[in-house]
């Protein structure tokens, strides 16, 4: 058992923090989010230069061969700075999935370009009627000569408007709720029949409703085996969740620091409001949540690394549930303790709060994962 960062992780953390504190102040972030693409290509190139885009990509594919703990280090820092660049979509979900399940030619075509910052990706899996059920896929892919033809709608596809390629799940067999019969395709975002209704997100990002209307893709666009993508999707989502848990950790720590500072400086009734015991105990409860969030973000990363599917899902759901609950508590209380200024757009506090709320709604909220964890108890032996 070892809870220490490796020297490499320590260096990574330092350099990333330094970069972000210099380049990524709140106003600068606001400008990126308000720009037409919703993020900065320049920053993306800098992240590539720092080597961040290859962290979790295998060395054979031009990356640094890291694991979920390395991603955790990155995401914690990105969370604190509220980075809007499409790191999770492109690197964790896109690159990670291709690295784990892509064909040799898919890897060759995409991974070095991802590491180099030249290509962006999106992950289009959830659908308007799927809620958080991973196996619910109504989008279809039908054999069409040697290739496939895709039809359907994908919901709230993060970073789709800027993506070069989109990973699209589609049903190739079975009923709408079956785990079997799902296949995964790598689709050119500019392919004929792909259309998007793009929009901003509540947390300053970008997403789109993606429609697929008779989109023809070749046999080589299949990622993994036909009908057999469900385990790949599960792993992708688990890696994504672990990354989001680390992002939440960065935000929760930042919110607590800001709130503590506010308690020490804001004067009411002739003293700093941090002198009031009721607020002190609230701040302690928030601190406890932060300490536990770090533990559970580690659990999520260890889960994402875990070879056993059941263990992996159990750990990831526990972490997503616990961190989701903690994020809600800390986010709401940080706003509350800031008082009126906390509900304005002017302070970063409300932006952290909103990002936490959106993290909670991504890949299943706290209640969803508590339910998954609970239902898993039925399978336990006495």
């Amino acid at each position, binding site marked *: 058992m070892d809870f220490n960062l490796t020297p490499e992780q320590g260096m990574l953390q330092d350099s990333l923090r330094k970069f972000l504190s210099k380049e990524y102040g709140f106003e600068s972030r606001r400008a990126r989010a308000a720009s037409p693409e919703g993020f900065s290509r320049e920053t993306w190139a800098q992240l590539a230069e720092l080597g961040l885009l290859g962290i979790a990509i295998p060395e054979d594919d031009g990356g640094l061969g890291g694991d979920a703990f390395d991603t955790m280090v990155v995401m914690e820092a990105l969370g604190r700075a509220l980075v809007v660049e499409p790191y999770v979509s492109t690197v964790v979900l896109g690159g990670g999935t291709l690295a784990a399940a892509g064909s040799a030619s898919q890897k060759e075509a995409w991974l070095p370009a991802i590491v180099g910052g030249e290509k962006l990706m999106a992950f289009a899996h*959830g659908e*308007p*009627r*799927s*809620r*958080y*059920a991973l196996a619910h896929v109504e989008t279809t892919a039908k054999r069409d000569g040697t290739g496939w033809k895709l039809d359907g709608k994908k*919901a*709230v596809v993060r970073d789709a408007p800027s993506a070069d390629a989109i990973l699209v799940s589609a049903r190739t067999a079975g009923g*709408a*709720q079956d785990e079997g019969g799902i296949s995964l395709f790598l689709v050119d975002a500019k392919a004929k029949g792909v259309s998007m*209704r793009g*929009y*901003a*997100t*509540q*947390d300053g990002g970008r*997403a789109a*409703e993606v429609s697929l209307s008779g989109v023809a893709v070749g046999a080589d666009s299949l990622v993994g085996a036909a009908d057999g993508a469900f385990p790949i999707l599960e792993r992708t989502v688990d890696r994504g969740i672990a990354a989001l848990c680390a992002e939440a950790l960065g935000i929760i720590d930042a919110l607590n620091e800001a709130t503590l500072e506010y308690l020490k400086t804001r*004067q*009411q*009734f*002739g003293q700093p*409001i941090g002198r*009031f015991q*009721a*607020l002190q105990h609230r701040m302690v409860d928030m601190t406890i949540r932060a300490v536990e969030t770090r533990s559970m973000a580690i659990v999520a990363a260890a889960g994402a690394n875990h070879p056993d599917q059941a263990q992996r899902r159990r750990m990831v759901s526990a972490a997503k549930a616990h961190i989701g609950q903690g994020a809600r508590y800390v986010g*709401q209380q940080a*706003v*509350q303790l800031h*008082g*009126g200024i*906390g*509900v*304005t*757009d*002017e302070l970063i506090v*409300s*932006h952290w*709060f*909103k990002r936490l*709320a*959106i993290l909670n*709604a*991504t890949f299943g*909220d706290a*209640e969803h994962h*508590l*339910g998954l964890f609970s239902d898993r108890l039925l399978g336990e032996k006495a």
Partner: protein
Amino acid sequence: MDLEFTAAEQAFRQEVHAYIAKSLPAEISAKVHGGKRLGREDYMRWHRTLAKQGWVAPGWPTEFGGPGWTAVQQQIFDEECAAAGAPRILPFGVKMVAPVIMRFGNAAQKQHFLPRILSGEDWWCQGYSEPGAGSDLASLKTKAVRRGDHYIVNGQKTWNTLGQFADWIFVLARTATEGRPQEGISFLLVDMKTPGITVRPIRMLDGEHEINEVWFEDVKVPVANLVGEENKGWTCAKFLLGHERTGIAGVGACKRELKRLKEIARMEPGGGGRPLIEDTRFRDRIAQVEIDLMALEFTNLRVLSAEGEGKRAPGPEASILKVRGTEIQQALSELMMQAVGVYGIPYVPEALDAGWTGEGVGADYAAPLSGHYFNMRKTSIYGGSNEIQKNIVAQLSLGL
């Protein structure tokens, strides 16, 4: 004891219901039910309608134009308005400054201002909080210096709601600096058209503009607009904050929101192709908030009934209603956002305009929900934060 409404109360409810059904414009109630933006004219149109009916100020004494309703009738009216999707009657004139003028104002003030509040001719906003004086209102710094027949007002107010539409603002200003902070404050009525007043919007966390800062730079206010005595404004301020009971719990709005939540849960997909409301876990959370709302509703009615009988409840009851009412409003808004799952993620502010005809994202009802959840966080902060309310209960009611 009897929990049933009396026959007279039921008849009253029917009368109110019928009147609203006939008089509330459908396009306005559609906006309210759909969580769309309301403009100045939406508020004013309904205000004028109710004013004509004599119902715009349910809590006012009949001598000033109130309808003479009991507290329970006021609650029924409140619920019927909320259920029908009526815009709220903004409290700043009717429920805040008017009772102060009735209690502390002189004859001329009463004669001039009260009818204009009733008719809607004057839109009022409030000038209480300052950046450094929130919970600790008595530490306010805005100054009013007497010069002849005028006060010269300088300072900055914040958390001003919808001041961009207002004709008048009531202001707490410091007219003396000796003594305890509560002493030396005066209560002034200020015409928003007076030179030197600047209204600056504050963008809120939901991206909307509802709140402002109001700056005063050498603003001349006639001494005739002082309410009550100079330096005794704290009495007015406390009266204003403690006055309002009816509606403070927001039971009517909570009931409407609960109904909306259930409608959404019946429409949203849950697991296995079934509607979300069939998901035991989500439904239990609705059940919990519905039960909490029942407790609030009957607590509210108990407090109102006691007041109606002259057993006027002391301040602590109002604090309890405020705390629980806001907690339940917040819980409802959170559940609504969660009900729509990933469709809480898009930010499509144009969809909040009733006339917008663009391509929506997800179900129609989804667009306002996240913003509503974010915005509702303010309710446990404003009007005396819930922490302050608990201090009030601890001190006044429990003697701690």
